């Protein structure tokens, strides 16, 4: 009698932290045949995927595979570039954000974004940076409410203790890692349900990187996080699911494989994925 046992039952930390999605109300983000162009250059081709809520999903791939473009399509930032165009659908919850009547500005208010190079507003203080989101959206708050909000989000970004005496100092006077956490606090201040991160640690030193990764893991308890990274170890450390993108011969970036992170990194299904993640590419 030959038996086959189920997969080993040891759970990885990622699986414990993000029980396979609160897909109760459907995935947090869903794309349907998403395409994106820069002028005539077709950057992202026919990407369809579902991103579960309250977890971290990583997008990996070599340069030029369209992963950053894909990310920017999720909060309608792609269209900021002149000549940029999107086709297909992106659902946040049940709502297609590219539907005719949707206001892009409102969509961006619901989705936070953190960029590769920390970009705190230099002529604003730490306090004002965190408060910038609500202020730029015209939200009116009393002084006390604003103080509370600033402190709460600086705590969420694991930065409060380091800057509580420096709230009036310029945002640019902090170290690189602190600046990035400030940007995270700033993004959190508008209470988004989704946080998009475009290679958030690539400009930081290793210790700062680990702090950001820890932070991402903790935030995933409340938020849906999508993180683009070219560092595969980071993707495997931080995410529950990973998507691998690759630009084909036609230069169009497509989704090659998408699955649970520990499966993708131990037994990838596609040989291109295997070649890329083991570094034997090209």
């Amino acid at each position, binding site marked *: 009698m030959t038996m086959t046992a189920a997969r080993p039952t040891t759970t990885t930390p990622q699986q414990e932290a993000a029980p396979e999605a609160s897909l109760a109300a459907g995935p947090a983000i869903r794309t349907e045949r998403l395409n994106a162009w820069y002028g005539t250059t077709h950057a992202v081709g026919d990407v369809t995927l579902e991103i579960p809520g309250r977890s971290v999903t990583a997008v990996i791939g070599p340069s030029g595979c369209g992963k950053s473009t894909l990310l920017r399509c999720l*909060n309608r*930032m792609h269209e*900021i570039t*002149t000549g940029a165009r999107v086709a297909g659908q992106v659902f946040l919850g049940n709502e297609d954000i590219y539907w005719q009547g949707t206001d892009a*500005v*409102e*969509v*961006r*208010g*619901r989705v*936070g*974004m953190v*960029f590769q*190079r920390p*970009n705190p*507003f*230099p*002529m604003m203080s730490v306090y004002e940076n965190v408060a*910038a*989101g609500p*202020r*730029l*959206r*015209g939200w009116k708050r009393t002084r006390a409410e604003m103080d509370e909000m600033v402190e709460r989000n600086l705590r969420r970004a694991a930065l409060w203790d380091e800057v509580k005496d420096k709230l009036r100092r310029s945002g640019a006077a902090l170290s690189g890692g602190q600046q990035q956490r400030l*940007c995270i606090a*700033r*993004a959190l201040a*508008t209470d988004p349900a989704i946080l998009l991160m475009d290679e958030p640690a690539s400009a930081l030193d290793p210790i700062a990187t680990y702090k950001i990764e820890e932070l991402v893991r903790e935030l995933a308890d409340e938020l849906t996080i999508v993180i683009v990274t070219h560092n595969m170890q980071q993707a495997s450390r931080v995410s529950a699911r990973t998507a691998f993108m690759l630009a084909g011969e036609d230069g169009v970036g497509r989704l090659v494989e998408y699955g649970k992170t520990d499966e993708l990194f131990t037994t990838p299904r596609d040989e291109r994925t295997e070649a890329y993640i083991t570094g034997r590419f090209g």
Partner: protein
Amino acid sequence: MTAAAIASPSWRVRRRRRVADTIMAVLLTAATAIAIGLLLLILGYLIVNGLPALNLAFFTERPKPFGVEGGGVGPAIVGTLIVSAVAGIIAIPIGIAAAIFVTELRPGRWGAIVRFAAELIAGLPSIAVGVFVWSFLVRGLLGRYSAIAGAVALAVIMIPIVARTTEEVLRLVPGSLREAALALGAPRWRVVMRVVLPTARAGVATAAVLALARAAGETAPLLLTALGNLFFSTDLLRPIAALPLQIYQYAASPYDDWHAKAWGASLILVAVIALVSFALRAFAPRVSR
């Protein structure tokens, strides 16, 4: 590949090179000497001829008619200040708005058109600007020579300067800041007003001051618009004195006494503009970060 493989040039070639270098150095030095020499010459003349004419009365009194001793360029100083200020109030907002239009709204082709138009206006001879404003306001709308007409003429000259410099400064604001603000869900106009402009405010201030300094020294437009005034005046609808005008009147006269006054007024005008420029340079590095 060994280092010794590079052959050394022959003696002749080396000598030819050295001679060419020397000739070049001599020519450049001579040209620079001429340029600096001219500057020193002008400054020297100004100081030597203008200083004697300066006294308290020169600053505070109004010009006396020919034949009478004394008098000053008081009204001209006040006039220059008033006309420049009004020109600034008109030109600076318009110039900044044009710059924002070109960099932030980015309508593509329209942006290029606006920039081209600004270049054209900047290239107009100032007398042509004066004629236009004279015909439009002095002969047309207002019916009289007036300070406001002078201010408008100066504004026309200032707008392209403000716009061009502001545009360059706005371009220096990193796109990442705009992206960060947009990603927070801010509408475009708030991104410009609350993030881009404040970041560039030092540069914008520089642009404004540069334009004012330039306008304060213009003569031709004021000839046909402000006309000049021998009395102190703050009435925008009346002709007004201005330093460049006063200098012209004094210098073009046949009287030596007035020539001396022209030197004095020139010195004041140059000194004021120089002061503003130096002050700008002193503050600029700290402020334009």
